[in-house]
């Protein structure tokens, strides 16, 4: 469960230090909401059959998540 909320950059830095972890990707709340709507809007539909890798990459691209963190 390592997709987490942080109150500030300082709190995130402290947490990374305490976990001896490397910084991953930081999203604003508005970007996460944008991602959530694109990712989950049809999850309850009978027409949802999962996604191809290409479809996933297209969603990331649409909200400008294009660094190597978001690619295979």
């Amino acid at each position, binding site marked *: *469960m390592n*997709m*987490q*909320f942080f*109150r*500030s950059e300082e709190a995130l830095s402290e947490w990374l230090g305490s976990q001896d972890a490397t910084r991953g990707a930081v999203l604003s*709340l508005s970007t996460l909401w944008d991602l*959530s709507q694109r990712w*989950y*809007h049809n999850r309850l539909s009978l027409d949802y059959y999962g996604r191809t890798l290409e479809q996933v990459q297209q969603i990331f691209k649409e909200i400008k998540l294009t660094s190597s963190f978001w690619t295979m």
Partner: protein
Amino acid sequence: MNGDKVWEIRTFIYQHFAETTCPPHVDEVASRFSLSHDEAVSAYRELHQRHALYLKPNTHEILMANPFSGVPTPFQVHANDRTYFANCAWDALGIPAALHTDAEIEAACAQNGELIRLRVSNRKVQGSEVLVHFLVPFRDWYNDLTYT
């Protein structure tokens, strides 16, 4: 069992989460779809294999059907007069996105436990100065989804 039936079961599971906040027991699925217990278990395992939901290890109990969690978590989503549990920060916003509804979200700062309250209203999210950190890169998400 054909693929269409398995996918109908997936949708039933999601609708059950939406209506009750909990996953259905495998025997409820068996009854709903006129299946034997073993056939319903087989459908659950196939959906797990397809990453459509995630079972608790060595069981046929649903741990996650993203964005819903089958067990209590620190990510609470109040919507439609119910309280749902999400799997992570992303899924906390994923629940109102999936339900197409307003929501109040209660979670905590991962560093200091400080309460974080967010509101989704009229398809917009409100929250002050909150950051979201993804530790695991996309290429590794499905190696260990609970850790991710």
